[in-house]
């Protein structure tokens, strides 16, 4: 029974399920093998959204859309899942389902359950944040408000691909739903079971291996001591691709998702502490006030489904050259707090932490505890270039942080993603900016220096020359913005 994990329990469409299976079994596999085939597999890589389900991961949040194809079912202990089969209440269609019929929002229908769930999750989040009173007054009608509403509708379905409809009717459905207040799903469906959630699954023999989800830092360290070779998993959005795309297997997984010490999230006007298990979604919400550059950027990272799963620690630990958080954290001189099951915590500068292509200072027994950042009040810009605006991997990304004293630059940080084996800074350029005022001549010279300093590869996402030119052009754009020059964007151009 070595490949069988400890039995977990979770709520599925209002029924308590007990399940033991492999540590790396996906929720999608579980659903489809048990005859719940409404949830579809389109890509098995978290890119298409056909497998979207709703999960209530804790009792402080609404149901959230997630990709079942890369979600380990073992991670659901105590949580509540709704699939398309469970969405109707007393067999009455959910408003998202009814709206898609009304607007002719389904053609082949294969992606439809995913869209239904994404829309239902979006509505649930609004209902949840509005509270039982339904929240404040709806926004007054104006062209700008209309544009904002449409943008929100687009975001709600930006993690779902449809190849038939061209999205127009689905957006129309979303627009209908936006003006139709609804009750939170947990009022009509199963609510997360707090007692079950806080309980530990049975870890006795014969379930010695498999999936473990420690709930304290000490338990996590104990487990790491016992199984130093176990893989760590937080959101699993990268790790699970090994299973679904490469027939890889993980017999031992230790989840970081339930350890409160890894969930810190404090963003003050000038500094931030972000626990490694904080999801992009939670980070985005928290960053709105004091870290707007990051807040805005995060809508370009993955999709809502991915942002509800993926974590800051995962992005750092994977250390991909195109990891979306790395350039901005490099520009912030972030400190990575690394823990170990027997050694004291270690603070490492992110520039030291990143060691090469998907290489970091993490050794077996290590895990990332949190990230510390200061300088949030500095001038900060973060740009990303990709073929597609939404849910695409960066061809190039550029983060620029400046401290300015009057018109003099007193500190500069310039970091790039997608231009080398790892995300990197260009210290020579930073030096060159030190003490300078931003002038046309300076910008021209920096532009040239970037072209010379970088030597990226050509690949499926972009050519070498384009990457270099974008790196240089976007650095110049940041400097122009620092000068306060008006820099209108292609998005938002018609909003004003």
């Amino acid at each position, binding site marked *: 029974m070595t490949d069988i994990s400890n039995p977990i329990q979770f709520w599925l469409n209002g029924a308590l399920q007990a399940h033991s299976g492999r540590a790396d079994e996906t929720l999608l596999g579980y659903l489809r093998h048990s*005859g719940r*085939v*409404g*949830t*579809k597999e*389109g*890509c*098995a*890589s978290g*890119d298409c959204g*056909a497998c979207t389900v709703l999960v209530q991961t804790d009792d402080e949040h609404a149901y959230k859309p997630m990709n079942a194809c890369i979600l380990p079912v073992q991670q659901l202990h105590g949580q509540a899942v709704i*699939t*398309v*089969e469970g969405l109707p209440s007393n067999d009455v*269609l959910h408003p998202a389902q009814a709206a*898609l*019929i009304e607007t*002719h929002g*389904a*053609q*082949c*229908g*294969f992606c*439809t*359950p995913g869209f239904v769930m994404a829309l239902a999750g979006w509505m649930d989040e609004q209902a949840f944040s509005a509270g039982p009173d339904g929240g404040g007054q709806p926004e007054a009608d104006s062209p700008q408000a209309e*544009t904002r509403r449409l943008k929100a509708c*687009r975001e709600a*379905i*930006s993690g779902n*691909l449809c*190849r038939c*409809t*061209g*999205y127009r009717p*689905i*957006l129309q459905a979303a627009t209908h739903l936006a003006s139709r207040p609804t009750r939170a799903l947990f009022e009509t469906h199963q609510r997360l079971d707090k007692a079950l959630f806080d309980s530990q699954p049975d870890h006795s023999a014969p379930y010695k291996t498999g999936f473990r989800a420690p709930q304290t830092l000490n338990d996590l360290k104990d487990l790491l001591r016992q199984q130093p070779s176990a893989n760590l998993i937080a959101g699993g959005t990268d790790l699970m691709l090994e299973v679904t*795309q490469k027939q890889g297997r993980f017999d031992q997984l230790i989840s970081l998702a339930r350890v409160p010490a890894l969930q810190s999230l404090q963003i003050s006007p000038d500094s931030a502490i972000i626990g490694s298990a904080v999801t992009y979604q939670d980070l985005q919400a928290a960053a709105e006030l004091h870290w707007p550059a990051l807040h805005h950027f995060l809508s370009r990272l993955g999709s809502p489904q991915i942002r509800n799963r993926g974590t800051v620690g995962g992005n750092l630990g994977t250390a991909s050259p195109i990891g979306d958080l790395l350039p901005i954290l490099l520009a912030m001189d972030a400190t990575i707090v690394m823990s170990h099951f027997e050694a004291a915590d270690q603070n490492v500068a992110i520039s030291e932490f990143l060691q090469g292509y998907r290489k970091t200072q993490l050794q077996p027994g290590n895990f990332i505890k949190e990230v510390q950042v200061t300088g949030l009040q500095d001038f900060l810009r973060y740009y990303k*270039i*990709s*073929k*597609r*605006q*939404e849910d*695409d*991997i960066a*061809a190039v990304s550029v983060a620029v942080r400046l401290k300015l004293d009057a018109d003099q630059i007193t500190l500069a940080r310039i970091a790039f993603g997608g231009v080398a084996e790892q995300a990197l800074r260009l210290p020579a350029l930073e030096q060159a900016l030190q003490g300078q005022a931003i002038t046309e001549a300076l910008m021209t010279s920096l532009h040239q220096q970037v072209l010379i300093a970088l030597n990226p590869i*050509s*690949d*499926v996402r972009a*050519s*070498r*020359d*384009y990457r270099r030119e*974008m790196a240089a*052009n*976007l650095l110049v754009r940041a400097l122009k913005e620092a000068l306060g020059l008006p820099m*209108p964007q*292609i998005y938002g*151009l*018609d909003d004003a």
Partner: protein
Amino acid sequence: MRKLAATAEAGVVVAAVGQAAAHESSEKHVRGTAAYVDDMPVPAGTLFVATGWAPVAAAKGLRLDLDQVRQSEGVIDVCTEADVPGSNDVSPVHEGDVLFASGEVSFHGQVVFAVAATSQHLAEVAVKKAIFTYEAQPVQLTAAAARATEDFVLPTRTFQMGSPALAMQNATRQVQGALHIRGQEHFYLEGQVALVSPTEDDGVAVLVSSQHPSEVQKLVASTLGIALNRVTVSVRRMGGAFGGKETQAAPLACIAALFARRTGRAIKYRMPRQQDMMQTGKRHDFENEYRLGFDDQGVIQAAELTLAARCGYSADLSDSIVDRAMFHADNAYCLQNAQITGYRCRTNTVSNTAFRGFGGPQGMLTIEAAMDHMASTLDIDPVDVRLRNLYRLGNDETPYGQKVTDFRLGRMMDQLIEQSHYRQRRQGIAEFNARQSYLRRGLALTPVKFGISFTATHLNQAGALIHIYSDGSVHLNHGGTEMGQGLLTKVQQIVASAFGVSTALVQVSATATDKVPNTSPTAASSGTDLNAMAALDAANQIKARLIAFLAQGDVVGPGEFSDGKVRHGDVIWDWADLIQAAYLNRVSLSATGFYKTPDIHFDRATGKGQPFYYYAFGVACSEVVVDTTTGEYRLSQVDILHDVGRSLNPALDQGQIEGGFVQGLGWLTTEELLWNEAGHLISNSPSNYKIPTAFDIPDHFKVTLFQEDNPEATVFHSKAVGEPPLMLAISVWCALRDACRRPMQPLPDLAVPATPEQVYWALSGRKDAADLGRGP
């Protein structure tokens, strides 16, 4: 007397045809209860297939060591070409598409063996254990390379009209250019899949996601070496197809059938997404050249157009696809004197196949690029150049000899110019571009003329089967398949209208080779044109019998079927009562219907004829805004006017128009199919091949149906709508190119697809950079 079944409710319905009825499966779609092949319960003991594929793009002397594969956990059976009892050839028309490669390898990813194992995972683990030995050969990856070596999958063809060489020489002005148009991955959300069970007659029952059940039947039978009557194929629905399941689904069914026969167990073969992208054909890349001769007003005198398609390693449907590219290289314009040449180039890449538009888009884009080029040299608004060259009375002959007789396109263009405020916006854009430092806008209004009919004339036939049961409920079946386009809904509406009953009374059913035989693929936009007519034929036969029954030997007057009633003379029957009475009086309540498109023919030797029954038209106006510092862009406004004849279902038609447009948008903007120098597809997953998302469509996305009867005798004078709208997206590419033009500079070349990178190179005038690192 036997007890009759309870009377079905005929319901009250007025003119189901023309109503914006919801898709027949819409509630099942949103509930997740619409079943696709992968959702069907599998019989106990079902085995799962994975394939082993060529690790190189070209090789000879291929030898396989499959010992470790056979010994791998869970493996029940392994097959290669040597294990095929019938034919290893799975070509739709010509020869050369093989089920398993043997001896030599023609593209990277080509299937060389298959495994059936107790789980999908174990099958996939097993195939990785194969050891290949081979002599690698040089690879030929581009149309240009194939043209240089004159290596074609099929002979080159030419259409000629007038005296193009002389007219070109005499023309006061000329432009010439070249356009490399990249292909497109279908990216149907439901990947290729087949589930095959053995039958007691040594045959097989096949469930497959295919646009062409009859061809799957034929190829499964020929693979197994058995008669067609031992193979049944059925298709309830597909999760998208777009041409990608016209020929590409059959090999899955054939391999699964092979294992089913060998093991006596049910076999499921579902391709993982990445293999689907690597192993199945796509839209053809084309390397095209144009030369136009014209006068000072921009009126074309002569055209020389060369279309060279990258067909891949085999013919598949490339003959007809390149034909259709040639048929559409004129688009909406009278070329006066023309020579159009189409090359079918062989390359070491997957064999390219049908994709919505079927070559038409690549032909049409070429002439549209040339129109903009011509207009830019004259400094005339491109829309005026387009209007001046439209087919009209007296200028109505196409290069393949068919006369255009329906001239609605000029009126449609005028209407959209007005509706979209094209002229005012053109002015506003000029002002914006003069004012802004680094953002630029672009605008284009382009027409579409698309020929409707299979150009292989024999495919223009269809069959249908209607039963009326003794309770009055109707069972409807025909040869067309449902892939999301709403075919079953439209035919259901038509049959309900014919009988004057509610659509709720007409049950649609899975397309099945044992109900309607020898069917054509659901393709060429012809699904409704053909199958609805066949269904109507069946309905009319039954109606005639009912009327004859009512007339009781008297003179048979016309009957009226409406509102759930049948009126004949002074007598009014409730539908269900009449059906029961007819049954008791031994009237046959089942009929097969048949239809063939009239008046079409084409002589391939002379390149002349009347290949199309009629044309469908459309016009689109698109506006973009481009960031010149990055090449990033946004489609900011789209207005479409599209010709559907008299719409059978405006909601479904609008869905086809919007969906087709956005699919075309993806082809021309973000969907970049790339291979490396070794011939490996590098855009092989949704993480690096990007189809549009909801963010890529504009807030202002307005589609208007141009509803004017089709002058031809099509079903209720409707027009086909599946493919033509895809080409409306050419307006986006033209608008992007318009935005890339610098004041006082020539119109720059712009690659296809126009990714942000390619727009940046066009803006920077860096023609040299545009192909850097982009691979073959």
